[in-house]
């Protein structure tokens, strides 16, 4: 466990010294700030727009960070051959994969926290400057703590996407890994449609494939509760808990597969 922690610490430091995620965090913070300006143009809908755009920025920029660092952490080590130095130390390939994954998830958690703070700063400003009439029109309070449920689920989704990116990067090139991960992310958000698919096709083989894909691909729709929190619709603790449990199981399966592939790999 100590070795995994050391590798994770190094992976975190690598991400910290890589400027790309910070550029994205800056973009996200700017976007959250811009949502405030946009909201000024739409009478009565201001808070809803800020929340919509702010949470979308958290999700999209988090996704970009997860994909672009996730695909590089392992494949870059292999391509540049820095893996030679590390794997000839008392580090097993399993510890290497788990350490890299934990390092990246820590980076994401830190980045998401920064973006969330920026988001709440904008909301706090809205709260402080809003008139009573404006407040009366809000579906939920500006600083509604239930929004954190959406942030927690975004983090769960990002942890899952990171595991997908890491899995692909153990056997394919960074570009292919990025395309596959983004493809899977899109498919994951439309996964529920696959279930409906079998009701509209006649051929049993196609229906069977659709059903297989429904169970195989990650179902990312439950991670998106942004609309609920914006409108103040309660998100149950059991929904959050079960979705995170699902993420945990899926991540464990992906990491197990990534480790199985990585342990058999030759480094030429």
């Amino acid at each position, binding site marked *: 466990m100590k070795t995994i922690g050391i590798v994770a610490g190094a992976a975190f430091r690598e991400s910290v010294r890589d400027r790309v995620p910070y550029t994205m965090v800056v973009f996200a913070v700017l976007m959250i700030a811009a949502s405030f300006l946009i909201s000024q143009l739409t009478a009565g809908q201001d808070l809803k727009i800020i929340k919509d755009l702010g949470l979308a920025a958290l999700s999209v920029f988090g996704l970009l960070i997860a994909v672009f660092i996730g695909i590089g952490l392992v494949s870059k080590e292999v391509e*540049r051959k820095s893996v030679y130095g590390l*794997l*000839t130390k008392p580090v097993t390939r399993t510890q290497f994969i788990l350490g890299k994954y934990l390092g990246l998830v820590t980076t994401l958690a830190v980045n998401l926290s920064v973006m969330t703070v920026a988001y709440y700063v904008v909301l706090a400003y809205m709260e402080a400057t809003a008139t009573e009439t404006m407040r009366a029109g809000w579906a939920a309070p500006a600083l509604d703590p239930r929004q954190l449920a959406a942030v927690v689920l975004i983090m769960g989704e990002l942890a899952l996407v990171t595991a997908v990116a890491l899995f692909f990067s153990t056997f394919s090139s960074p570009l292919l890994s990025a395309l596959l991960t983004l493809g899977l992310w899109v498919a994951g958000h439309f996964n529920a449609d696959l279930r409906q698919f079998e009701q509209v096709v006649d051929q049993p083989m196609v229906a069977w494939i659709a059903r297989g894909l429904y169970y195989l691909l990650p179902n990312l729709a439950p991670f998106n509760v942004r609309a609920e929190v914006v409108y103040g619709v309660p998100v149950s603790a059991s929904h959050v808990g079960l979705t995170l449990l699902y993420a945990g199981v899926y991540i464990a399966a992906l990491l197990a597969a990534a480790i199985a592939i990585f342990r058999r790999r030759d480094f*030429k």
Partner: protein
Amino acid sequence: MTPAIETEGLTKDFPIGFWRPRPYRALDHLTLRVEAGEVFGFLGPNGAGKSTALKLLMQLLYPTSGSAQILGRPVGDASIRQRIGFLAENPYYYDYLTAEELLTYFARLFGYGGTELTRRVARVLDDVGIGSERRLRLRRFSKGMIQRVGLAQALLNDPDVVFLDEPMSGLDPLGRRHVRDLILGLRARGCTVFFSSHILSDAETLCSRVGVLVQGRLVASGPLSAVLTLELKGWELVVARVSDLLQPDLAKLARQVTPLSDGHVLLHLAPDAEPDRLLAELTARGAHIVSLNPVRETLEDYFVQVVGSAEARETRGVGA
């Protein structure tokens, strides 16, 4: 006594081609034994399979067949990593770290901490000649400096066995001497050193034994003098103060005469030229002897000859 390194029929095939991959044999039944405390030179031309053999020993590659042991344990045994060091050919380390941070990271993986860690990192960086640059990020390091960092990380844990893949690569003459001294220091403290090289002078200075690998096969192993016949090909004699009277006779004594600067003359002599008699004669006629060197078969000549005969055998085999 348990050998430091032992391989038995170690073989590695790589698939070549995408649709119908054919096996390409990079290493062919390597059977080798290196005793504890030896400095073993693993020699061979580029593409001979030296790096493949080293990567198999480091478990960066898995063998197609055969087995390998380090310090009496199978190479897959994770515990041996605590007792070995490895320097890859043209190494790359994380360029966002400084040399000191990289070694601290690796030292922690070995389980060192506190003052012991700080002391060790500082000592190995001193040993490889990295001074104040240790606090610079590695992206600013030259190839030679990276090579030194690579050596430092290979020696961090005071290993019992060190594997060095082309350790002199990218080093200037001063750096090469430094590495040679380091390897000699390791030998003095009883560390087994297994290094690959295609440079004969390195092997001559450092190795107690060598193995010669050609096209994936070990074609010879033993002390260098036994492996290479070191056939004498002639002599090179440099003389000064050659009088005008002596000048015409030089052409008769030597196969070739090359005038050098400062009035020096280089004589290329036949292997059977009897240099003792010649030196006496030239000295008696007023010439000053500057240097006399035997011209021997080089490792390059040896490789050309062995590779040539291996290719010829293969052609005959295919034709038969």
